[in-house]
């Protein structure tokens, strides 16, 4: 089961066969694409709410260290994998993975120079399974 999360300075970030360098943060968010809300005939308040369509998005922010004209590009699909740990050690280290599709690549300026911001949407294998997998990573690289 996944969760909303923010990973700061993950040491290893992979997308498909590529390793993304200089990543400063990865955020994973969840939102409703469709909300069903029903009121009754008896009063003004909502009596039923459900979210039959939801979306998991990820945003990867990296320092742009050199000229880079290569991928990723919108539409690219692959397995986004990164590792987090509370103190940069192997203790409590987690591997977060998801199949995702790139939806935007932007290069906003910032106090540390140019950054690369990559937006992705996570894809479920069958529409039921959570697209984000979190597992104990131990010393896995």
């Amino acid at each position: 089961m996944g969760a909303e999360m923010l990973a700061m300075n993950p040491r290893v970030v992979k997308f498909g066969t590529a390793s993304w360098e200089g990543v400063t943060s990865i955020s994973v968010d969840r939102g409703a694409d469709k909300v069903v809300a029903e009121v009754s005939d008896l009063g003004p308040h909502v009596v039923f709410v459900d979210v039959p369509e939801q979306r998991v998005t990820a945003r990867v922010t990296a320092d742009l260290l050199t000229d880079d004209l290569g991928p990723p590009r919108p539409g690219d699909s692959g397995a986004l994998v990164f590792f987090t740990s509370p103190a940069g050690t192997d203790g409590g280290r987690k591997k977060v993975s998801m199949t995702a599709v790139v939806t935007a690549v932007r290069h906003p300026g910032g106090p540390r120079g140019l950054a690369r911001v990559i937006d992705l949407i996570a894809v479920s294998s069958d529409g039921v399974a959570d697209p984000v997998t979190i597992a104990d990573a131990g010393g896995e690289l």
Partner: protein
Amino acid sequence: MMSKRGQLVVSSFALGGGDAGSVWLGLVETDITVRGRLQATTEAALWVLRDAVLEELIDPPAAGTLVDLNERSWSTMSFVSYVEGDRTDRGRVRSVAYTAIFRKFNTPP
């Protein structure tokens, strides 16, 4: 929701008349439209609810008393139509929106 009430009015021209006036043909039949959502925890349980509704659609339609949640009663109403929303919503529960129409026929079945 109650449908438009009143006279069915058509132009005289449409009935072969030669003037620009209109003719009343009588009071239109009353429709009561009910919009709601069937909810169940499983797909099979949702179909049980659907089937229960569909079993009430019979030919010829039977007349009965329709009672709304605010205790207003409508006599000699016939269940004539059931239309579902564009999809089954599969979130925490299975649910589907529906629109059911009941009609008070001028000539009851």
